[in-house]
C-alpha cells in the first residue's frame, strides 16, 4: 500500500460508506486523475479492487492507545476502518482488547485532529504548508543552523521498534543524546529494582501459573504494564485450581476490586507489610530465610506482626491469613505497583516485595526471564517521571535550544511546582509531532500533523513481553483521513534527510525503510520464506515472533534497603493521583466513548472526583457529591467527593486524566488534574517522582455540585443480582472436573 495521500482516491473510497457518500457527494462529485490533470467522472459503482461493497475485511495492526502493544484486527469496510478487535494471533492480548483499545477508532476519527502543519507567527499558530514548516525546521536545526550537539532534545512517550532506531539516528545526526522518555504511568522504580536484583528490567510475570498473587498496589488488570495480557493470564489464574488474589494498597484499584482480600494500608507502608509477611513466613518456617544476608534477616525479624500492624494500619489477622495462604499454596507471585513505588522510599518498598518473592522461591517459577532481545536497537525506550525532572533541569540550565515532542504531554503531566510551561517558554525552538492540540503542542513553534496510529506504519517491541517475545507490526488500516498529515516514521526520515545523515536518502518513505529492514532480518526469523512472502505473512499475522532465550535461569542479587516507619501523623492526607483504565494519564480524555464510560470504581462519567473513606468524610462533614478543596504546598484543586470504603482514611484519591486546558472539545475544561499539585518529592534511589507522597489538607467548600454518576444505588438492597460463593464450593464443583 503506497503511503501517498490522494484526497480524491480517499473520497472515492469513502463514497461507498453511507455517511461518506454524503460527504463526498457534497464535496467533490468528480474524480481527478493527477497524472493527466484532467477531470473524469468515475462511477462509484466501480470501487477500488480491494473494496468489496458490504463486506468487512480485517487487517492486522497494533494498538497504540497505551504502551502495551496489543495486536488488533481492524474491520475495514468500503475503505473505512469501523471497529478494532483483538488479534487472536498476538501473544500479548490473544484476541482480546480493553476499552482504550476499542476506542482507538475515536482517536483516529477524532474531530479535533490537527490537519495542517502550523507555525507560530506573532504569538499564534498559523496553518502553513509542509514545505514552509520543514524549511523553518531546517533553518533552525539543519546543518546550516550551526547548532550541534546537546542543545537538541527529544521528549517522547514510550517509543520502540524502527521508529526508535530512526529517532536515535536523528539524535545521533544532531550529535545529541538527550532523549527524554516521559510516561507518568510507569514502572520505572520496579524496573530499576528488577534490573538490580534480577538482572533484567522486565521479566515475564506468570500470573497464570501463580496460585497466590500478593499485589502491593499493582493494578495489573487496569493500568499496570500490559493490562490485557495480564487479564488473559488472570482468567487462567481464576480457573480451577483457583488462585487467591490479595491486594494491599491505600486506594482500591480495579485489581483491588477483584481481590479475594483487599487490605487497606497507610500510604507508603507497603514495604513494611511485605517484610511482616516475610517475618510471619519465617516464624512458621525459619528455613525460609536461609541464605539471606544477616542484615536483611535482621530487617525482617524487626517487623513482627504487631509492629507492622501498627505502622500499616492493617489488622493483624490479615497478616496471619496471607502468610497461611502463602505457606499452603505455591507458586506465588508478589507484585508492586504505583502505590508502592510512589514514595521517597519507593525503591526500598519494591525491593522488600521482591525480597518476599525471593523468600517464597518465586524467582524462576512465576517470575520468568524474558531473555535477551536480539535486536537491542528496537527495544522499547521506556521512561518515567525522572526524565521529566531531568528535562526540567536541562531547561533550567538553559541547556536546550531545540526540543522535539512526540506523544508525551509534559506540560499537562508536570506538577505546577516544576513550572514547565515557564521554562519551555524560554526554549528557542520547539517542534511538536502531534495529532491533537494538547497543552504541549500549543507551546510549540512548529506543529507537524501526524497520522493517526491507524494510518501509520510502525513496529513495536514492547517493554513487557509475553512468554514468546515478539515484534508487533503496525500497518495502516485505511487511507489517511487528511491530505496533510504524515506518518511519524516518514517525518523522522525527512528530518534525517534534512540532516544529510548518510544512508537514508535512498528511502522514499518509511514503508520503504521498513521493507528494507524486514529484508535484512536474519534467516532464523524469516524461516526460509522469500522477502515478499515473509512480508505478506507478517502483515497478515500482525506479529513477528522473536527468540530471546526466555526462561533462562535468573541469578538473584539481593540489594540492601531500608524502610522508614512512616508513622508521622500531622492531620494531613496523602494525595493519590490514581490511574484509571480509560482516560489513562489524560491522553484519552478527548475520546467521547471513554469519557462516557463510567469509572469502574466510582462510576463517575465526564468528570473528576475525590475518593474518601467514610470516616474521613465524617470528620470533614461531607457526603458523596459535596465539593472539597484539596490543598498541597504548591496549589489546590476542587472536586466532588465520592465516599466509599475502598480507600485508607489517610488518603484522598483523585484520578488522573481530566483537567485539560486544551485537548479538543471532549477534554477541555473538564474536571481537575491532580498531578498539578504534586510536591516534587523524589524516590531516594532512582530519582523518580514520588507521586503518591504529596501531603494535602482537605477542606469543605460548602458547595454541592451535581455529580454525574451512572450507578443508582451502591448496594444490591438484598436482591440476588450477584451472589458470592466461597472458593471451597468452587473447588468442589468445578475443581479439576
Amino acid at each position: 500500500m503506497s503511503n501517498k495521500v490522494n484526497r480524491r482516491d480517499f473520497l472515492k473510497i469513502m463514497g461507498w460508506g453511507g455517511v461518506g457518500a454524503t460527504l463526498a457527494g457534497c464535496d467533490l462529485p468528480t474524480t481527478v486523475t493527477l497524472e493527466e490533470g484532467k477531470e473524469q467522472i468515475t462511477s462509484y459503482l466501480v470501487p477500488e479492487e480491494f473494496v468489496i461493497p458490504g463486506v468487512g475485511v480485517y487487517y492486522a495492526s497494533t494498538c497504540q492507545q497505551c504502551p502495551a502493544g496489543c495486536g488488533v484486527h481492524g474491520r475495514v469496510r468500503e475503505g473505512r476502518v469501523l471497529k478494532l478487535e483483538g488479534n487472536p494471533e498476538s501473544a500479548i492480548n490473544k484476541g482480546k482488547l480493553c476499552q482504550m483499545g476499542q476506542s482507538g477508532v475515536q482517536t483516529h476519527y477524532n474531530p479535533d485532529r490537527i490537519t495542517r502543519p502550523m507555525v507560530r507567527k506573532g504569538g499564534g499558530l498559523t496553518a502553513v504548508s509542509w514545505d514552509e514548516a520543514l524549511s523553518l525546521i531546517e533553518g533552525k536545526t539543519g546543518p546550516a543552523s550551526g547548532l550541534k550537539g546537546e542543545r537538541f532534545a527529544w521528549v517522547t512517550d514510550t517509543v520502540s521498534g524502527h521508529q526508535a532506531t530512526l529517532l536515535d539516528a536523528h539524535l545521533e545526526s544532531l550529535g545529541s543524546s538527550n532523549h527524554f522518555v516521559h510516561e507518568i504511568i510507569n514502572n520505572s522504580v520496579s524496573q530499576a529494582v528488577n534490573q538490580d536484583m534480577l538482572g533484567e528490567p522486565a521479566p515475564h510475570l506468570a500470573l497464570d501459573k501463580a496460585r497466590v498473587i500478593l499485589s502491593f498496589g499493582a493494578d495489573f488488570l487496569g493500568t499496570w504494564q500490559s493490562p490485557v495480557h495480564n487479564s488473559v493470564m488472570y482468567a487462567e489464574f481464576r480457573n480451577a485450581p483457583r488462585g487467591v488474589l490479595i491486594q494491599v494498597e491505600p486506594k482500591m484499584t480495579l485489581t483491588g476490586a477483584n481481590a479475594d482480600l483487599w487490605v487497606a494500608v497507610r500510604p507508603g507502608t507497603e514495604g513494611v507489610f511485605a517484610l511482616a509477611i516475610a517475618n510471619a513466613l519465617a516464624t512458621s518456617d525459619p528455613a525460609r530465610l536461609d541464605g539471606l544476608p544477616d542484615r536483611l534477616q535482621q530487617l525482617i525479624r524487626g517487623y513482627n506482626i504487631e509492629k507492622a500492624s501498627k505502622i500499616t494500619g492493617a489488622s493483624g489477622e490479615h497478616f496471619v491469613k496471607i502468610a497461611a495462604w502463602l505457606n499452603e499454596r505455591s507458586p506465588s507471585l508478589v507484585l508492586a505497583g504505583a502505590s508502592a513505588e510512589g514514595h521517597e522510599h519507593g525503591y526500598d518498598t519494591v525491593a522488600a516485595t521482591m525480597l518476599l518473592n525471593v523468600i517464597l522461591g518465586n524467582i524462576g517459577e512465576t517470575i520468568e526471564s524474558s531473555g535477551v532481545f536480539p535486536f537491542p536497537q528496537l527495544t522499547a525506550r521506556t521512561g518515567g517521571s525522572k526524565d521529566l525532572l531531568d528535562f526540567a533541569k536541562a531547561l533550567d540550565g538553559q541547556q536546550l535550544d531545540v526540543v522535539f515532542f512526540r506523544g508525551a504531554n509534559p506540560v499537562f503531566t508536570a506538577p505546577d511546582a516544576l513550572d514547565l510551561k515557564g521554562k519551555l517558554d524560554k526554549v528557542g525552538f520547539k517542534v511538536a509531532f502531534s495529532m491533537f492540540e494538547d497543552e504541549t503542542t500549543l507551546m510549540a513553534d512548529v506543529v507537524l500533523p501526524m497520522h493517526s496510529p491507524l494510518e501509520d506504519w510502525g513496529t513495536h517491541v514492547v517493554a513487557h513481553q509475553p512468554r514468546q517475545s515478539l515484534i508487533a507490526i503496525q500497518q495502516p488500516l485505511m487511507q489517511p483521513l487528511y491530505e496533510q498529515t504524515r506518518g511519524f516514521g516518514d517525518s523522522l526520515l525527512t528530518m534525517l534527510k534534512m540532516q544529510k545523515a548518510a544512508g537514508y536518502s535512498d528511502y522514499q518513505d518509511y514503508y520503504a525503510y521498513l521493507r528494507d529492514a524486514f529484508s535484512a532480518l536474519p534467516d532464523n526469523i524469516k524461516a526460509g520464506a522469500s522477502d515478499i512472502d515473509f512480508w505478506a505473512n507478517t502483515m497478515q499475522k500482525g506479529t513477528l515472533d522473536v527468540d530471546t532465550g526466555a526462561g533462562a535461569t535468573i541469578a538473584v542479587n539481593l540489594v540492601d534497603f531500608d524502610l522508614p516507619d512512616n508513622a508521622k501523623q500531622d492531620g494531613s492526607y496523602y494525595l493519590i493521583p490514581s490511574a484509571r483504565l480509560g482516560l489513562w494519564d489524560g491522553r484519552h480524555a478527548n475520546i467521547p466513548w471513554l469519557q462516557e464510560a463510567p469509572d469502574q470504581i466510582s462510576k463517575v462519567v465526564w468528570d473528576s472526583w475525590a475518593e474518601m473513606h467514610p470516616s474521613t468524610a465524617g470528620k470533614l462533614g461531607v457526603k458523596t457529591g459535596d465539593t472539597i478543596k484539596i490543598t498541597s504546598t504548591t496549589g489546590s484543586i476542587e472536586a466532588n467527593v465520592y465516599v466509599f470504603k475502598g480507600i485508607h482514611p489517610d488518603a484522598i484519591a483523585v484520578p488522573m486524566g481530566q483537567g485539560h486546558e486544551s485537548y479538543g472539545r471532549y477534554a477541555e475544561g473538564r474536571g481537575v488534574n491532580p498531578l498539578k499539585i504534586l510536591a516534587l518529592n523524589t524516590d531516594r534511589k532512582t530519582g523518580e517522582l514520588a507521586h503518591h507522597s504529596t501531603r494535602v489538607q482537605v477542606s469543605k467548600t460548602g458547595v454541592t455540585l451535581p455529580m454525574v454518576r451512572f450507578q443508582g444505588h451502591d448496594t444490591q438492597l438484598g436482591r440476588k443480582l450477584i451472589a458470592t460463593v466461597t472458593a471451597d464450593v468452587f473447588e468442589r464443583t468445578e475443581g479439576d472436573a
Partner: protein
Amino acid sequence: MTKDINEDIKWAKINEDVLRSMENPRKGYWMAIAGCLLLLSFAIGAEIYQYNVGMGPSNLNWPHMWDLYIATFIFWIGMSHSGTLLSAILHIIHADWRKPIYRFAEAMTTFTLMTAGLFPIIHIGRLWNMYWVLPYFSDRGIWPNFRSPLVWDAFAIATYLTSSALFLFMGSIPDLAICRDTATGWRKKLYTVLSLGWRGDDRQWRHFRKAYLIMACFLIPLAVSVHSIVSSDFAVSIMPGWHVTTFPPYFVAGALYSGCAAIITLFIMLRYFFRFEDYMTIPILEKTAKLTFAIAMVWTYLNIIEFSSIWYGHDPISKELLLAKFYGPYAPYFWAMIFLGSVLPFTLAVEKLRRNIPVMMVVSLFLNLGMWLERWMIVTPTLSMAYSPAAHDVMWPSWVQWFIVFGSFGWFGLLFLIFVKIIPSVSMYEVKEMIFHRRHMAKKDIAEVMHRRTTDKKTPATESPGLEGA
C-alpha cells in the same frame, strides 16, 4: 330539611335564566377565555419544542420513562368518570336531584376525555405514528399488539368518548329545541340542525326516554371498564407498586372521587357566575358533598387494603417501595396526597362546612390536587426504585412537562367555556320535570311513580312537562 329546589319557580323563568347564561358574554368570560388561551399557548409552545427536539427536554430519563404526562392522563380520565357515570347511575336509580347538575357534569366528562386523550399522544416518542395503535387495514398486514393494555386504552377511551358525547348530546336535544325556538341568526341555524327536528311530541318523548335509558345502562359498565382498563396499564406490568390486583376498583374509586370534586368546583363556579342559585342549590351541593365523602372513604379503604396487603405480603421489593413512598424522596408528595385524599374530605362530613360555598370551593380544588398527586405517586415512585438497584433514580419534571400539564387545564377550560355558551349548562326540561314532580307528587313515592311512567307503556304521558315550557 330544606328542599332541593324551589318548587315555585316559573318555567318561563327557568328558560330565561338558562338562556341568559348563554348570551352576551361579559368581560369576565373573555378574560377567562384569554387566560385559558394563554395557558394553552404555553403548552403548545412546549409541545412544539418537544416535538422538534425529542422527549429529552421534559427530563424524562432512564428509568423514568413515564411521568407527569401519564399521571395527568389518568387524572383527566379519572375526572371524566363522575359526569357520565354518576349521571347515568343517578338516572337509573331515579335520584332526581341530579337533574340541575348533570348537564355540565356530562360536558365535563366529554371535555376531560378530550383532554386526557391528548396526553398519550403528547407522551409518545413518535407521535406522528400514533395511529399505529389502531387496528386499521394496511397493506403491510401489521396489526397492533392486542395484548398490550395501551391498545385496550385506545379502544376504551375512544368508545367512552364517543358514548359520552352521544349521551351528552342526546340529553340536550329537548333543550336545544328550546334554544332553537328563541335564537336568531346563525344560532338559529345551528340549533335547528342540532335539535334534530325535536318537536316535543309524545312519540318523540317516548323514544327519547327509552334511548336515554339504554344509553345510561350501557354507559355504566363502560365507564367502570374504562378506568379498570386504564388501571391495567399498571396492573398488567410486573413492577412493584404497579402490579396490584386491587388497582381496577382503586382506580374507579379514585376516578369517581376526583370527578365528584370537580363537579363541586364547577357547580360552585356556574352557580356564582351564571346566578344559578335557584337551580344549583345548597341541598344539592350537600348531596354531592356527601357522595364525595362516601367515595373518599372507599378510596381510603382501598388504599389501606393496598398498603396492608403489601405490608403483610411476601414481596420484599414492593415493601421496600412502599417504605420508600413513606420515607423516600417523594414522601412529602405522598403524605400530601394522603392528607388531601383521606383527611381533608372529613370537612365534607361537617354540615356547616359543606354548606359553606367558599369552603367547598377550596376543599374541592384541594381534593382534586390530592387526586392528581395520587396519580403521580402511582407512576413515579415505582419507576424511581424497582428491581434493578443500579437504575434507582430520582427525577423531577422539567418546565416542558409542567407547561403541558397546566396547558391541559387551559384546554379543558376553553372547551368548557365554549360549551356553556352553546349548550345550556343546566338542563331546562329536566329541571322543569323535577319541579313538576316535586310540586305534584311530593307526597307520593316519586321513584315508584317514575318507574311506572317509564315502564308502563299503557299509561299515557298526559303530563309532559317539557312541552309546557317550550
